[in-house]
């Protein structure tokens, strides 16, 4: 159990430096500062190449730190040998020793530490039930399913009683159902063991469902660090808004227009306009182009809304999804309303005022009221 602090951490790979002269954009990780509190489950999330795995590898001691400081509790670990950092690591591809039994795989690192066999057994049997691998202990890795292999892999990382558990895309290789099961179990495990845990993933659903806090990265830069609900409900920029949530937030280019002293979001090449929530009237001027962000659930069917034509109606059982085309823009609306619409029907829509997001069209940053 420990607190992890990254302070202005940079990473630059040498070959990039040579090629491009080491411009700012060439940092794999660029001035990252985050604090993971004791016992917290933190997700590092982003598309491939965003620097998330590099960050994890610097914490683990697998990569040199170009600049900045990393602390575990109050110890600076920049130059600490990986084995002395008190870290448990589990990678995506399991990396189990095929000739060894599950028990011996789990015990491997403890034996390397010259722990007595009796103590090893005690430790293995402490973690094995939590990860539900007791019945697998005599088996060889080849006989295990993907989900079982990952359980063993995580057990092996935990058995060393790490201060910090690092998981690199642990669920990526698993099929849908197994991923969902193991996701729930990882969450339970974290509750039982209480070990500070960092998970690296490109899957926003995984990061959302597991983490206490999510660190969203892009091009080496931290975009937002907050609870799953914060990054969902209040994304700081258009990138986070589009990355978090499935189906994604509707992000549409609109122009601010005025009619009878009321401001509207007007869709280009169409007569559809949606009233601007009053709280934004001070910060938006007529004629400005902005990106309007509305989650599919926050687009509402209402008598007093703007009429639009349904392009797609999907009945998905638990919910219905309605696709709407306005000029070149496409919007998705999700409703649990039982009405069965069809393509071509006219519905009236409006926005959930409190849940309307507006982003600057140039910078992508959120415009706040």
């Amino acid at each position: 159990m420990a607190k992890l602090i990254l302070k202005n951490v940079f990473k630059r790979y040498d070959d990039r430096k040579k090629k491009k002269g080491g411009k700012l954009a060439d940092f794999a990780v660029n001035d990252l500062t985050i604090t993971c509190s004791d016992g917290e489950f933190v997700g590092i999330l982003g598309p491939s190449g965003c620097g998330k795995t590099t960050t994890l590898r610097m914490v683990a001691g697998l990569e040199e730190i170009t600049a900045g400081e990393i602390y575990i509790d109050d110890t600076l670990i920049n130059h600490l040998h990986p084995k002395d950092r008190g870290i448990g690591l589990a990678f995506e591809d399991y990396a189990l020793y095929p000739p060894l039994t599950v028990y011996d795989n789990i015990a491997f690192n403890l034996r390397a530490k010259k722990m007595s066999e009796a103590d090893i057994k005690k430790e293995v049997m402490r973690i094995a039930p939590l990860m539900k691998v007791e019945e697998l202990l005599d088996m060889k890795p080849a006989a295990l399913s993907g989900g079982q292999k990952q359980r063993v892999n995580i057990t092996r990382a935990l058995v060393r009683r790490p201060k910090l558990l690092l998981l690199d895309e642990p669920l990526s290789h698993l099929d849908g159902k197994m991923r969902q099961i193991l996701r729930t179990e990882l969450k339970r495990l974290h509750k039982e063991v209480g070990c500070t845990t960092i998970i690296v993933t490109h899957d926003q659903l995984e990061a959302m469902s597991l983490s206490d806090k999510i660190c969203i990265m892009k091009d080496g830069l931290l975009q937002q660090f907050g609870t799953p609900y914060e990054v969902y409900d209040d994304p700081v920029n258009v990138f986070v808004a589009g990355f978090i949530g499935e189906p994604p937030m509707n992000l549409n280019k609109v122009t601010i227009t005025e009619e009878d002293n009321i401001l509207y979001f007007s869709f280009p090449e169409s007569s559809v306009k949606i009233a601007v929530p009053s709280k934004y009237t001070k910060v938006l001027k007529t004629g400005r182009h902005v990106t309007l962000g509305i989650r599919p659930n926050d687009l509402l069917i209402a008598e007093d809304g703007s009429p639009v034509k349904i392009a797609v109606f999907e009945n998905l059982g638990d919910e219905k999804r309605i696709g709407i085309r306005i000029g070149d823009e496409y919007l998705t609306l999700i409703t649990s309303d039982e009405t069965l619409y069809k393509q071509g029907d006219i519905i009236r829509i409006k926005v959930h005022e409190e849940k309307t997001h507006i982003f600057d069209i140039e910078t992508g940053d959120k415009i706040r009221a």
Partner: protein
Amino acid sequence: MANIELKNVTKSFGKKKALNDISLQVHDKEFFVLFGPAGAGKTTILKTIAGIELPEKGLVKFDGEIVNLVEPAQRNVSMVFENYALYPHISAYDNIASPMRSPLYKKDEDYIKERVMKVAALMKIDHLMDRLPARMSNGQRQRVALGRCLVREPKVFLMDEPLAHLDAKLRHFMRAELKEMQANFNTTTIYVTHDYMEALSLGDRIAVINNGQIEQLGTGDEMYYTPVNEFVARLFGEPEINIIDAEFVLDGGNKGVRLLNQIKSFDIPEDVYDALAATGKTQFHIGLRAIDLNFSFERQSEHDIHGQVYSIEPIGNKAVLNVDVNDTILRTVSPPDLNAEMDSDIFVSVNMKNAMFFDAENHELVVRHNQSQYTKAVK
């Protein structure tokens, strides 16, 4: 334009029976979905229709005519594959044009150009026509592959998991676009998928395939509301439906079902009661979708099931809330901003009107409330 029929089709690969007595009819201009888990036999059915696989037993008919011995090329089908299978060395335009340049369907270049540009506009890839596949994104490649399938006017489109390789977000948009285009297809389409949302969204009718057999054939509503068995019930919906033991109780004034060792039994609608009583059995499985379970942190009724919060997993517009009731996990959904400690007390109520009852031994559907309402079209 064609009716496609499979009659008692059987096919083995070595010892494994890939297709076991498959019979189905696809109507003219219907969008028909073959849905099921990996290895179920969906693609084998598609290949049998295309003529790439030959049935050991049974008949394949196009418009009533047996085509078992007709060469694939002569069947006039158009297929799109999961892995796109684009020609890497020619442009998007030439890829899409390729079926119409084959000796069998040879058309003049003016006609080809008109058709290709029409499909390109439909697929929104007009601007990519000169590009090689290597310089396209996955989504763009998939559009080209779909375009190549749609460019001809064959008897039937055969689509094998065309969206499976796309990420979740792109899949949402492409599925909606396919759905939007459907009206323009005007051609019988058979579509293979393992994604229940694609099946529900796109299919006029769906055949659920498992172990080389048809588990159920019908509309999306039938699958969702009246699955013939527990297997089909589990395939539709996210999170997965809860299926737990239910004991039918008749003692005294108690007419209902008892779940999870609760003392109080739950009242059930009369039609459900009658159907359960008619079986003469007392042990059933009950299927409850996550949205049919409600929760509260204080007891609201004597029927509430007392449990503990097992986990809360926010997934955007909602959270999956797992509740532990004496080691049985109930999956339910909550608002995404729910604030509750793991292991804290929680009470679950059940919407019995939407419950499905399955036979505890053979796992087949016994009854649900208002069952006839959901089964307009019969198997």
